[in-house]
């Protein structure tokens, strides 16, 4: 679904990613690495918030390297940013409507999300800025799912969230992946990431330090790579 070929990307003059690739063969890819390794930067380049200075991003057989993010969303990418972002001045419901607007089955998708995430139904008319972090993360995932994506890009979806809800979010992700959705996942929780992933990439200083097939068996080599 997603293939990244040898991209360089960064901010202004500073290059952060150096020749990073992700093979197109795996449907569930985990990106691991220390703080500042370039994980978020890689995801931002994937969704199009920053343009790579070199290399290509290919999605569903199409070169999307030069498409604006909203175009990539139209084609089936969805992005859940790091840090539980939402439109704080919009109500929970408006947050969902924003992405549902103009979709044939928009209303049905909103109803489906309110059912999947009961907390969102409970606080539907509350401003999203007043939701708790975990609720806002559920809202962010719900917004992404309303677009019925082919690829879900998740940047540390369980960061700063209480363990019981973490398990819920992890279950949601695994369920979606089993339902045929491709996932590009950044996750500090290595155990879960490897368990879910078909392929993993360890970034260090913006370079691929290690990669391989997912599964908990890879734990040892990942830990070794991250210790460097």
């Amino acid at each position, binding site marked *: 679904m997603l293939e990244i070929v040898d991209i360089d990307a960064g901010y202004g003059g500073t290059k952060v990613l150096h020749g990073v690739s992700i093979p197109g063969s795996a449907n569930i890819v985990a990106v691991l690495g220390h703080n500042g390794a370039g994980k978020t930067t890689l995801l931002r380049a994937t969704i199009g*918030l920053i343009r790579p200075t070199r290399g290509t991003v290919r999605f569903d057989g199409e070169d999307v390297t030069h498409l604006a993010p*909203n175009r990539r969303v139209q084609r089936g990418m969805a*992005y859940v*940013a790091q840090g539980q972002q*939402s439109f*704080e001045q919009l109500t929970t419901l*408006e947050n969902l409507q924003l992405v549902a*607007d103009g979709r044939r089955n928009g209303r049905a998708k909103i109803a489906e999300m309110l059912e999947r995430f009961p907390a969102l139904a409970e606080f539907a008319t509350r401003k999203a800025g007043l939701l708790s972090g975990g609720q806002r993360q559920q809202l962010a995932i719900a917004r992404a799912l309303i677009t019925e994506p082919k690829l879900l890009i998740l940047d540390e979806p369980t960061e700063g969230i209480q363990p019981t809800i973490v398990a819920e979010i992890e279950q949601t992700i695994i369920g979606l992946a089993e339902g045929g959705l491709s996932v590009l996942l950044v996750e500090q929780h290595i155990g879960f990431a490897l368990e879910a992933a078909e392929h993993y990439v360890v970034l260090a200083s913006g370079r691929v330090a290690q990669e391989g097939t997912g599964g908990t068996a890879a734990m040892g080599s990942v830990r070794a790579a991250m210790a460097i």
Partner: protein
Amino acid sequence: MDELLPPLLNGTALGALLLLAALGLTLTFGQMGVINMAHGEFIMAGAFVAYVTQQVIPSSDLSIPLALPLAFVVAGFLGLLLEVTIIQWMYRRPLDTLLATVGVALILQQAALQIFPAQGVPVEKPSWLDGQIDVLGYEWPLRQVFTIVLAAACVAALAAWLKYSSFGRRIRATVQNRDLAETSGVATRSVDRITFFVGSGLAGVAGVAASLIGGTNSQMGVQYIIPAFLVVVAGGIGQIAGTVIAALAVGIAMTFFAYWTSGSLAQVLAFVLVVIFLQIRPQGLFTVRTRGLA
């Protein structure tokens, strides 16, 4: 009471005119953060649209209602043109935007001078605006009532559009978090353009109202631009309710001052008051609250 009523009513009408002039700025300045000094000339453009419409359709009974949507579209397209050619390259550089749009304002004034007589042109008011209504013994000119009704209609339409329409949601989302809006599938560049179109179009509507009250000439935009910005800032930038209150307060204050002193001194006094108010409450009348700010 007999003394206070006329300035109160006249002041409300003046406030309504100010409000019309400022309403578009709640979008272009309030929502998008653009200091568009050519907004006053978009008002002027609207006034000239009223004049030109009257030349084509001599019946002012018909031409004025027709001029309102026309002025909206003409001023809207001027704004769109400005956004596409200049402002879009300067979104993060307010000073450059200010200087560039002052230049555009001067060009538009010069263009108006080339096309229309220097002393200005008359816009005839429709016959249905002749006359007065009796308010507690005061003969209130219908022309003033019209300005108030028009302002109220524009405010209601804008507020409803922002709050309830899907496009309004997209504007609010884009303003709050552009990257998140983009990655939620919102084409933020078209949102920018349409927001600018509507904000500028409202200036055109204000121009039609202004043409019925003051003169229509190449300099008329100048007298509106500063008051309009002040009213938006005092209202709490981007807050429509605040802008309404601020505009009415300034209009009424100005009229009372004019009653007691001279007209130009009244304007100065009113704006000194606004500036003092902003010293005490820099965020304006209304502010937005979130968990993050609380």
